[in-house]
């Protein structure tokens, strides 16, 4: 299966679930910003959850099916459309050769994921297919897509891929009536981000912590795959000691020397020297990946135990869903 990029959009890259074994060499994890949507897109097709997907940022991208395609898309940055026909999310879609697919605006979020049967075929670098643009490796030549790029599938189709291809044949775009209920994985209030206290939470005075958990924060315009700048009530430190550089990870909220807050995301550096006031629960990081500049969020404190319980629950649900689809 093969597509051609007719219009690359703002920032389109190949990503998977990230480079989790090279942090010791200061290589960022990278990978899909919204791992939940990336995984749902893969699951909907019967792919491995780790298969490479395309991450689109906002809308305004166009690609063409150069062969028949079995795809699925998920996420909130755009809605897929072909010849004016909306393509439903979170389910397998059979796209006949020659069709052009457009990403049109979805005001809900920021990022959209496109999975294809077998996964997109790009070389593996340090155990992952994720693009890391700063160092220029991974994905498609370590860069964002350009007009005319061609992407192919890996070829290794799963039994479920083949089953879907066989049942959805035809000259028209074809898809089943079911879809994965992705919203069931998301909390009702998608602007309330659950966090646990960070290792340096006690470096801030009690008023600062109280305001951190009550004041709204606005997503700044200087937000990207490395981190999200947060604007709003500044948090004051009570301990002025310099922190010796130590590990950070996606979801870490750092407070800089100007009392600015940065929520670190997929491409963040592996170490940092700013105090870590809080850590976003892993289950809520996908929500952060869909935030747009100007969005307002609040933080809700949960315990480390609760964060772990939520993560394990989410992982078990995804495993069960995977099993159901394999048995389908």
């Amino acid at each position: 299966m093969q597509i051609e990029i007719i219009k690359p959009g703002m920032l389109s890259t190949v990503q998977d679930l990230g480079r989790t074994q090279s942090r010791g060499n200061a290589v960022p994890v990278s990978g899909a910003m919204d791992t939940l949507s990336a995984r749902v897109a893969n699951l909907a097709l019967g792919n491995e959850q780790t298969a490479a997907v395309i991450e689109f940022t906002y809308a305004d991208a166009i690609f063409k099916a150069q062969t028949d395609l079995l795809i699925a898309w998920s996420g909130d940055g755009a809605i897929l459309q072909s010849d004016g026909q909306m393509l439903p999310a979170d389910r397998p879609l059979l796209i006949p050769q020659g069709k052009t697919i457009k990403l049109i605006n979805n005001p809900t979020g920021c990022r959209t994921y496109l999975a294809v049967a077998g996964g997109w075929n790009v070389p593996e670098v340090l155990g992952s297919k994720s693009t890391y643009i700063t160092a220029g490796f991974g994905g498609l030549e370590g860069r964002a897509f350009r007009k005319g790029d061609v992407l192919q599938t890996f070829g290794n189709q799963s039994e479920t891929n083949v089953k879907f291809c066989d049942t959805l044949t035809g000259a028209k775009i074809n898809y089943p009536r079911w879809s994965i209920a992705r919203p069931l994985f998301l909390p009702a209030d998608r602007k309330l981000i659950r966090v646990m206290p960070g290792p340096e939470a006690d470096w801030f005075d009690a008023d600062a912590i109280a305001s951190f958990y009550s004041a709204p924060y606005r997503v700044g315009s200087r937000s990207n795959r490395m981190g999200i700048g947060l604007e709003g009530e500044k948090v004051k430190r009570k301990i002025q000691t310099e922190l010796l550089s130590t590990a950070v990870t996606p979801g870490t909220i750092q407070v800089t020397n100007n009392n600015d807050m940065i929520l670190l995301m997929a491409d963040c550096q592996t170490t940092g020297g700013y105090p870590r006031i809080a850590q976003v629960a892993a289950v809520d990081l996908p929500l952060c990946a869909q935030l747009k500049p100007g969005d307002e969020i609040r933080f809700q404190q949960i315990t480390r135990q609760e964060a772990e319980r939520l993560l394990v629950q989410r992982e078990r649900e995804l495993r069960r869903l995977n099993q159901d689809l394999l048995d389908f």
Partner: protein
Amino acid sequence: MQARPLNIYPLSEQSVVLSFGDEVSEDILKQISAYHRTLQQNPFAGYTDAVAAYTTLTVFYDALQVLLSDLPGADAFEKVSNYLMALAVKPAVAVKPANIITIPVFYGDDFGPDLEALATFHQLSVEEVISIHTRPEYIVYMIGFVPGFAYLGGLDGRLETPRLATPRPVIPAGSVGIAGKQTGVYPLETPGGWQLIGRTPLKMFGAGRAQPSLLQAGDKVKFAPISKDDFNQLSKAD
């Protein structure tokens, strides 16, 4: 040598921080390196990665895999903590000799645009700056910031220089710089505010290499001055 973490606390629900002290010292560096090696040789079920820093080793894991293991503890954090705090560091592992790596540098010119101003700032000649910079055997405390970037200890106090008032938008890969008490090499083209004194033709990071980062924590580093001809020859060789 004792290689016992003093304290353990969560960074996230998939990582814990082991703290070995609160100051930068070669002793703590050795403890962390020995502990890190022991852990890599004796990983627990679900271990994924670890990041060594000045006084900490942060251990990353897959919580679901940890929960399925028979380690004692009520949840993944407790299971990992119990394992890590009980991990015995073998003396044989701890005494690994340091690698000594020489980094050839062409000092000054376009490759070290701040060298002359830095010399003037310290009332030294350019030759003296080069000689002072190449004399110490530096030690790699940690790898962080960007892939392959080494935090080096051992800069001569006579070369301590503040960062540039305005950072440069682009610093070429291989640039050797000074910022405060630190010196080091930019492995990738990035923005940065360090005072640039030279450039190495060595590739500090290569994603395709067996060991992607040329330097590792615990390594010893010497800088050696080279001519422009040598620089060009070595650039071709890499």
